[in-house]
């Protein structure tokens, strides 16, 4: 077990290293960078004081040095102007666009993102699993067709469109604004009870909007998985033992059909961050999605780099978690036997 974990950690580290190189160079691919673009702009306006500051920043972050040196400095394995100070040392860098350290820019947004998307994940599972079980055990019944039909609508509806529609009608019918994650008056306030209440009530619509497509997809997949398992011999065995229908279903086929979803956790975690950019923009949610988008557009390299690296870490960690969970749940994997 320990040997396995060690081996996994080494491969994870290598994977992350490769990803970091890719991330950095892809951000660097378009000519120029945020500061030189800005300097050009300032020159055009003739503001020499700002130019001096920008040039100071270029020196400060070594933007005048070759790309590979910048990369190593960003990683923290090569001394920059401030000595070793990069990702490895916990220095996420400076956001030029916001003129603040990256930590401050993404700090609040990061955990709000996680919160929104966690709510989405829970919503998806809580809604889709019972519907899928219903639909699979009553295949080709009216209820199954209805669930299938609604599922297809859910799959086919673009979530940003649904967001726009809800935005309009919620305001018109109930007079509430669903933009943002809490009422404007709480912005910058400390987290007290009224603010949390406001957050919770604002959370409902984004959760439904973002989760709808996922729910529909999950119902379809879960139903198909479960139908496969329902035809298996061991389910007949369980019934032949005299087990009641619900217990036989939950103990055997349902548990078997969970495997693919556990294996999916690795994909789910990064999706938490990057999956809902469009909806976040439409509903003006203070999540990292929109920040990432603007950082990529303006070549705010440290900010974009950090968010992308964060997603990468989530992916690798998610894979590890799903592998460990699978091994824990499925003895065939744990013991490396079977077929």
């Amino acid at each position: 077990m320990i040997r396995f974990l060690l081996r996994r950690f080494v491969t994870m580290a290598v994977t992350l290293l490769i990803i970091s190189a890719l991330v950095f160079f892809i951000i660097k691919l378009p000519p120029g960078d945020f500061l030189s673009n800005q300097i050009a702009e300032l020159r055009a306006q003739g503001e020499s004081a700002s130019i001096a500051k920008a040039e100071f920043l270029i020196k400060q972050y070594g933007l005048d040095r070759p790309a590979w040196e910048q990369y190593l400095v960003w990683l923290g394995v090569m001394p920059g102007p401030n000595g070793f100070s990069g990702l490895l040392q916990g220095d996420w860098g400076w956001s030029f666009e916001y003129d603040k350290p990256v930590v401050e820019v993404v700090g609040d947004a990061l955990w709000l993102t996680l919160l929104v998307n966690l709510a989405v994940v829970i919503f998806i599972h809580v809604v889709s699993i019972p519907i899928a079980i219903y639909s699979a055990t009553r295949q080709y019944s009216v209820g199954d067709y209805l669930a299938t039909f609604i599922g297809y609508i859910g799959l086919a509806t673009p979530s940003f469109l649904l967001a726009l529609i809800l935005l309009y009608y919620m305001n018109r019918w109930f007079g509430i604004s669903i933009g943002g994650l809490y009422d404007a008056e709480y912005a910058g306030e400390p987290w007290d009870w009224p603010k949390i209440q406001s957050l919770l009530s604002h959370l409902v619509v984004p959760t439904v909007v973002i989760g709808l497509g996922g729910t529909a997809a999950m119902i379809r997949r879960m139903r198909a998985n479960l139908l496969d398992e329902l035809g298996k011999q061991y389910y007949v065995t369980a019934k032949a033992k005299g087990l009641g229908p619900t217990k036989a279903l939950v103990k055997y086929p349902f548990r078997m059909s969970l495997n693919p979803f556990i294996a999916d956790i690795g994909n789910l975690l990064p999706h938490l961050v990057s999956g809902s950019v469009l909806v976040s923009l439409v509903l003006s949610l203070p999540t990292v999605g929109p920040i990432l988008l603007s950082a990529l557009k303006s070549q705010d390299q440290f900010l974009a780099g950090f968010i992308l690296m964060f997603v990468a870490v989530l992916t690798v960690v998610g894979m590890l978690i799903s592998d460990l969970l699978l091994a824990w749940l499925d003895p065939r994997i744990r013991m490396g036997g079977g077929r």
Partner: protein
Amino acid sequence: MEAPLLSVRQLTVDFNTDAGNFRAVDGLTFDIPKGKTVALVGESGSGKSVTAQAILQILSKKARIESGSILFNDPSSGKTVDIASLPPESDAMHALRGGRIAMIFQEPMTSLSPLHTIGDQISEALMIHADVDQAKANQRTMEVLARVGFPDPKRALTTYPFELSGGLRQRAMIAMALITRPALLIADEPTTALDVTTQAQILDLIKELQIETGMSVLLITHDLGVVANVADEVVVMYRGRIMEAGSRENIFRNPQHPYLQALMRAVPRFAMAENERLTPIREVTSATLATANAPERIQPKGPILRAEHLTKCFTLRSGWFSGKMREIRAVSEVDLSLPVGKTLGLVGESGCGKTTVSKMIMRALNPNSGRVLFDDGTGPKDVHKLEGDALTAYRRSVQFIFQDPFSSLNPRMTVYELLTEPLRIHNIGTSDERYERVKQLLDMVGLDQRSLRRYPHSFSGGQRQRLGIARALALEPRVLLCDEPVSALDVSVQAQVLNLLKDLQAALGLSYLFVSHNLAVVDYIADTIAVMCRGYIVEEAPKSSLFRNPVHPYTQALLAAVPDPDIDRPLDFAKLRAGRFSHPSEWPEPFRIKPGEFGVMKEIEPGHKVRLGHLTAREAA
């Protein structure tokens, strides 16, 4: 007369399909007396499994009991219930199911959940029906596991099904069925998926337990050999109806119904006369085959195919979390030789390495040592050193027939595409010539030319296997490797395919390497038989002398374990109980082979060779 335990009267089961109603069981009437074994015999699709499911009310959703009654006289309560009138999910039915009537299934691998321990699954059966706590249930589970022959019942409680061999899994299934002490055990093809020696042990176990508990057994099988050995009464079914029913004596000594007589003639037996031909229920006729000739080719002087000292090892990781590697020797020092136009039978139980040998001959696997020599008339060449054109030519000459006719044909290709694919790959002929060739091939295997545009799913198992044979013949091969080609087929169809293979060999001068676990089948088709066990060839002989005079203990055990559909030749269960015949290190001297040794083959009469341990070999020298 005492009332029977179960009386089925005029049972009718219908399936609702898209094409309308399909009657799977039609007016079935039979009794299961107390303490007796009733065998329900028939080909696949005869409705025998559906009958069993109807008794337990676990029919699939599309099926329903249309009419008739299933009266169950419970000996413990003395009450009689009509199962057919109970709703499937009623409490009374739940109590019967598993409690008074238990069932075991064909596939012990898939019938147990791989995610739950044996102990969990067996004790669950008891806890549903008896008011016991987990500790007591575990105690009882251990007792039952010990009774069905688990060497270490305590450990077995926490074992997962995939850690067990097929035989032990089926024993676990039996334990699960018997823990509630049911009055009736329904065994649906309980030994079909098992090796012959294991099959004999399981049948023996069921018999013993039956005597101990006085339960009745409903045995569902297609194997007349099994029926002849364990049944008291026999019911023969065909297309949902009873063709003939009676005591075992009557059925085997004096079969009346033409269907039963035909079925009996279709089963290969050991006591068959030389050149006696099986009579399939539906014979394949082919005009092309009668006039077909082997292509003119230079014939090799020696054997067309020879294996010398073939050895293959596989490395396995012994656990998911550990990096340790284990090495398993699947094939040890195998020597074979296949003469032109003859059939070499390779017999052994699952896992003995017979398929690995055929794959190495096909060059799908590389041996660790040893070589395969192929002689196309220009002298023997090492198959694993062939390259370029020579390799392509070899691929043309050696073709494969697979076990499973369902998964070996691409369901998205028509018959025409399937049969022309080998020709296209090897760039043979124009499209007109290919079309002609395919028509010829289809006729050779007795299929209608109208099937060209159809897809595999519209054919029956036997027809598909014939398509597989036609595909293998497309390139005019010299050698066919047949890997269990009839083990997935019904007896009647099996005879048909075996006869076809024989006719093809006679007409086209083919040489066969015939891999099978079924000794009777190999006896029917092969000229020489090699017996494999744990990667060794333990005995090799012309078939007459192998069956007349088996020398090796493993061969003897294997022969003794085959149930013959002849009630005058019953299985010798006592002899098979020892079960120490499949471990080379436990064979008696002079056959014992220590781990790491290979032993040597010794010729005891012309053509009859037996593997001996090293010690004896040295003494002899």
